[in-house]
């Protein structure tokens, strides 16, 4: 988004694999107008960070006048990018929220194949964290809850509820009681 005044703004959120390929990405700024410029940015960010150890604590760097905070788990690389005048800790809180939510949604099996199999959850998760560059929520458990809150529509016939859905509902309730 072009101008959000003084509001903190996120330029993009990237989830890449251990070779720098896209798992899921979302851009909120016009800085990278074409797919090839996006790919170039991802490749650049990936190669500049791949050698660092961002597994225990989130790491940070300044690339092409953007602040990038990142964290790696297994074969997944999480990135959040903001402008160079952005508060680093705000960016980091978005990264942490994204990371926590994904960990919950993938039931702690955070790796590429699990992420791809649950890509719908990951995409919904991105949608619930940032809207057009503006931060919607940074609390991981709350994001995960918003993604999975599929208590059946009251009008829907009971027969449509599959076993998985019933289980998911149960799990949500469980996570909620556990985390809040």
């Amino acid at each position, binding site marked *: *988004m*072009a101008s*959000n*005044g*003084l*509001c*903190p703004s996120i330029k993009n959120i990237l989830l890449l694999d251990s070779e720098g390929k*896209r798992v*899921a*990405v979302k851009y909120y700024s016009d800085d990278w107008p074409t*797919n090839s410029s996006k*790919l170039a940015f991802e490749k650049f960010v990936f190669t*500049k960070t791949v050698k*660092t*150890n961002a597994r225990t*604590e*989130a*790491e*940070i*760097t*300044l*690339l*092409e006048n953007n602040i990038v*905070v990142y964290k790696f788990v297994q074969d997944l690389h999480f990135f959040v990018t903001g402008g160079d005048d952005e*508060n*680093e*800790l*705000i*960016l*980091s*809180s978005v990264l942490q929220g994204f990371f926590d939510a994904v960990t919950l949604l993938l039931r702690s099996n955070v790796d*590429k*194949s699990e992420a*791809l*199999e*649950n*890509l*719908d*959850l990951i*995409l*919904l998760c991105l*949608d619930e964290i940032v*809207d057009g560059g*503006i*931060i*919607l*929520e*940074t609390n991981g458990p709350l994001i995960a809850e918003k993604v*999975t809150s*599929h*208590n*059946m*529509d*009251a*009008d*829907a016939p009971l027969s*449509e509820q*599959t076993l998985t*859905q019933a289980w*998911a509902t149960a799990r949500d309730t469980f996570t909620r009681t556990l985390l809040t």
Partner: protein
Amino acid sequence: MAQPLVKKDDDRDDEAEYSPFMGIEKGAVLQEARVFNDPQLDARRCSQVITKLLYLLNQGETFTKTEATEVFFAVTKLFQSKDMGLRRMVYLMIKEISPSADEVIIVTSSLMKDMNSKIDMYRANAIRVLCRITDGTLLAQIERYLKQAIVDKNPIVASAALVSGIHLLQTNPEIVKRWSNEVQESVQSRAAFVQFHALGLLHQIRQNDRLAVSKLVSSLTRGAVRSPLAQCLLIRYTSQVICESGNNTQSGDRPFYDFLESCLRHKSEMVIFEAARAITELNGVTSRELNPAITVLQLFLSSSKPVLRFAAVRTLNKVAMIHPTSVTNCNIDMESLISDQNRSIATLAITTLLKTGNESSVDRLMKQITNFMSDIADEFKIVVVEAIRSLCQKFPLKYRSLMNFLSNILREEGGFEYKKAIVDSIVILIREIPDAKETGLLHLCEFIEDCEFTYLSTQILHFLGIEGPKTSDPSKYIRFIYNRVHLENATVRAGAVSTLAKFGAAVDELKPRIFVLLRRCLFDSDDEVRDRATLYLNTLGGDGSVVETDKAVKDFLFGPFDIPLVNLETGLKNYEPSEEAFDIDSVPKEVKSQPLAEKKASGKKPTGLGAPPSGPPSTADAYQRALSSIPEFANFGNLFKSSAPVELTEAETEYAVNVVKHIFDRHVVFQYNCTNTIPEQLLEHVIVIVDNSEADEFSEAFSKPLKSLPYDSPGQIFVAFEKPEGVPTLGKFSNVLKFIVREVDPTTGEAEDDGVEDEYQLEDLEIVSADYTLKVGVSNFRNAWESMGPDFERVDEYGLGPRESLAEAVNTVINLLGLQPCEGTEVVPPNSRSHTCLLSGVFIGNIKVLVRLSFGLDGPKDVAMKLTVRSEDETVSDAIHEIVASG
């Protein structure tokens, strides 16, 4: 909704690169999307297909217009399903496809229904989707619901509406502004994110109303904000209010500083950091105000979290540029960061230490930087180079090790910006530290032996041409320069030829050898290179023997080129081939005021190789042509200067008149541009009666009236005055417009036969000193100053009395003198107590003038100024002083 898209196969573990999307193809997925049209919807399967479509889009696949439309229409069918998981995917899909305006209508009613659903999640998402795809007309229909949603008791719904409001404010501000009351209510929300979004929207609605923002800030700083993010916003708004309220630090207390300071004790690190950063960025922050912020940043330096360390060291690095002493307390913590795993943190720590450290630590720090220069990004390398440049200016004795470092990194890999920063730094060191010149030049020579950037090669060659001949042994550079003629592209070859010529002109002993080399260049494959070689062979004169070079030739080769390129370009375009050769002296030298965009960069320090700024095309030659078409003015000679138009009437009066002052050597011509703004009138025999009783050194020479001035078609009246030659004669003129009015019938456009005589009083007009000076920039003020010499230097000091600010005083003097500020010195850095401004220009009679102004604050508001003038004529130097003394 946690069902996997593909059932896990037991044997899939063998395959390392397993992906549920392996071999996915757009065409096949679009086929699959037909299931959306099934009468009995299979929600799970539909979800899977949407995920596949989203996967394709996410990987950068694009849909054609028809494909997108087809998918969109199919997806809208899925609103029939009551499956919530599927509905979420439908929302996502609609946002990704972003349908066109005529397609939006299809989903509007479904989304509006969801907006009023009992289920919170439907309401929130439907609002976000609808606001994303809507246009102004639809927005008016749903405005009522959005207002409701803003104060919805569910925080997710309220946030969705508020965030959508922030986006819509860009496109439909008038609608969103009506929601002020609801937004204000939700600022009080207990939910953290609702408060954050509401505050963000409220501020944007009111951002153009300073008073409202100031009220908002002062009411909220009393402690109603709970959310850390909202608190960060509040800190940003507060520092904006502080900045706009200006500096009334007379009493010592800054409004709202206490609030910022109290945020340093907030429980959230995000807020603490935001407040610390805001304090360090305050305009004219004092060290007493700075200290609490530095203390918390210092604590962050030893945090276990890299993000925190990075944020703190980056902020301290900025503070160190302006207040190095305030940061010295953190030096011990910084030292330990030099070995930080994160190279960005280490670089920032070292460069901060370089700014705050003392001379003895330089060598040790340099050694440490060398170890990891290859690991860090170019951005950081530039930071290091800049730190080293300023260090070298601070400790000139250390130039040897610093120059060595620069030359080493110059040899390594790097992008253009990085290399340019290094070259600029070396050039600055060569200019400022005479001892460093010879080694520095040799480093540059080595660099161009293997330089991939044409721009840098040519700039270095140019620099060599000026500095090389002045060294103890100029001949050793010739080999490097002549190598370029063999090995490089045409642009660099041409540059090398010019540089060779400069050596030939400046060093008489080298001349025979240079001649041989230049003759070889006559056979170059490129026109420009050959042309230059021929030109230089001719201008250097002689036949290759050791003779002294003419002064005129030296001026041609080394003198500044003081004609703006655009003026030269228009001059050449206007020139028509004839017997008479093109005369370069006829090109006006005045630099027209630069557009704002160019000024952005002027706050920075002048870089070593900066080219002189070029002005936009001038109107001067247009005036020149207009004037020369009037035979009476033909013998006035060349136009020296035309002023900007001065309005002589108020806006929206019956007749609009402005005047342009044209200055010639012995004459002044006033060009009155008149416009008649009354449709019912036709003016005839329009003249301006000029009374010069307050300008008795002028005598009226000629007046050219205007025969008729119909409605809305501007006309010109000229009045010429004679004045003493070459002297800046001043005076005040009063003007009256005299004419015969004839009424016009607006329906037929015909004028009545009888006219009435009438007159119209215009405002007075003055000839001021600035009318006699031309803004002509010089590219290198220091060189120009030294070559002018102190023969006609005049120095004096003036008290300017109380002024609003230093910047205001500087501007006043610049405008008074009408000279061109050089090297960006017209910009006064905030909070400085003294400032030096460099001006250059040409005085009437074509006499060059250079002015050095040193301003200083004397007491709280009084400004004192030292004025040093150098020019080619002492009367002109005195005249400049008279301008200031009387102004």
